[in-house]
């Protein structure tokens, strides 16, 4: 029983870490974008900023992996199915959009940001759908 309580506490702790690192990564990215446009012109500062942001991104990935390893078998299945669905959707929708643009069917040029937003959206929807499915 104590072991389970420890796992629950550890889950809370790791989720908190993930939130902190995700905020730090997004924060540095936002600061970097703002800084490059408004605060400095030095390429060296931009490179340092990019390195810090990249390092935080790596820590974020490790934090996410650590949290994933704490999930039980059902939670892992839900996340894996959501990831599989998101990967498939992102590739198919991304390529369809690109090809449609090339063929002149769509006139709005494909942007990387759209794909990232679509990935986040489809992962969120997949998680919700799969969580409800196994309730």
């Amino acid at each position, binding site marked *: 029983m104590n072991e*389970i309580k420890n796992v629950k506490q550890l889950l809370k702790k790791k989720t908190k870490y993930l939130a902190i690192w995700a905020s730090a990564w997004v924060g540095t990215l936002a600061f970097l974008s703002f800084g490059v446009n408004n605060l400095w012109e030095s390429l060296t500062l931009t490179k340092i900023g990019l390195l810090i942001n990249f390092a935080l991104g790596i820590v974020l990935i490790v934090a996410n992996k650590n949290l994933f390893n704490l999930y039980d078998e059902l939670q892992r299945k839900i996340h894996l199915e959501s990831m599989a669905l998101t990967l498939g959707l992102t590739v198919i929708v991304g390529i369809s959009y690109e090809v449609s643009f090339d063929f002149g069917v769509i006139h709005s040029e494909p942007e990387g940001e759209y794909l990232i937003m679509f990935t986040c959206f489809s992962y969120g929807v997949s998680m919700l759908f799969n969580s409800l499915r196994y309730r």
Partner: protein
Amino acid sequence: MKNKIRELRKQRGLTQEELAEIIGISRQAINAIEKEKFDPSLPTAFKMAKLFKTSIENLFLHD
């Protein structure tokens, strides 16, 4: 896969939460297993069989 988890759990007067804590998985996982929406891993199946003092073959019935 069909199983007798709910029946055996109730016989022992355990809640899903209590069983989840003993086995070491989430309550949602116990619920999904009982509703036969999700098949547990082999280690979980062994833990359940040991807890209910029965065999895996008796606990889980292949369709």
